């Protein structure tokens, strides 16, 4: 390789490397494995072949509290049809997480991303944000924030569509 190519290659890498650090998870991307959560306080479900709603929340976020009520109802309505809801807390303090969960008693899976690894990997844009994954494990819809009945209606429509899709593992 000539010195000239090496020189311009070095400049190109130098200039572009800054923009390659962040890797936001967007619609169409594969969602990272939940195993990065490690011992997160609840048994993590297998993602393959399931429609999943992954919600990022925090005990200090007021709309998150409201969203739990709606997700609890969704869990009850869609669990039998194969929807799995996983609520991932970004709380740094175990006590805050525990008291929030104890107070609301959600029926779905609630885990804590204690090292904030998953949330960094996903680069969540706001609190709360929920990701709807298709059976192929790819992000199909993203809901940034929670807007009560409007979010409830939209998410239900999207869950219905995802559950109705045919899926083959091969």
């Amino acid at each position, binding site marked *: 390789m000539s010195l000239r190519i090496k020189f311009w290659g070095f400049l190109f890498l130098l*200039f572009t490397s*800054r923009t390659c650090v962040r890797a936001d998870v967007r619609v169409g991307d594969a969602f990272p494995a939940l195993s990065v959560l490690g011992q997160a306080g609840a048994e993590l479900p297998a993602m393959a072949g399931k429609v999943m709603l992954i919600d990022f929340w*925090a005990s*200090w976020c007021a709309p998150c509290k409201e969203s739990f009520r709606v997700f609890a109802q969704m869990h009850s309505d869609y669990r039998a049809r194969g929807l799995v809801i996983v609520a991932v807390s970004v709380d740094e303090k175990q006590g*805050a997480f525990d008291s929030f969960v104890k107070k609301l008693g959600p029926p779905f899976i609630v885990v804590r991303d204690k090292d904030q690894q998953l*949330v*960094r990997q996903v680069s969540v844009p706001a*609190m709360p944000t929920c990701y709807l994954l298709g059976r192929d494990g790819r992000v199909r819809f993203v809901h940034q924030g929670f807007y009560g009945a409007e979010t409830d209606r939209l998410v239900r429509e999207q869950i219905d569509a995802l559950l109705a899709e045919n899926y083959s593992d091969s």
Partner: protein
Amino acid sequence: MKATSLHLRFAVLLAVLGLTALGGCASSDLVRVQPWERATLADPLMRPDRDALATAMTEHVYFSRESASGGRGVGGSGCGCN
């Protein structure tokens, strides 16, 4: 390799290094508190108007001390008597 070519390359290298360094100043990642890091900011203690009585007292002191400016949101003569 000619001296002018070397100078040109050195200048380009300097320019790219400069742009890269200055690009850091424009990057929002350096100063932005990420959404999942806002527990302290979301604490009710961070609200300046969390205590209505204390707020009213502060407003009154501010209004009195500022005199001719007319206080904060209230029309007055600045005499500090009300």
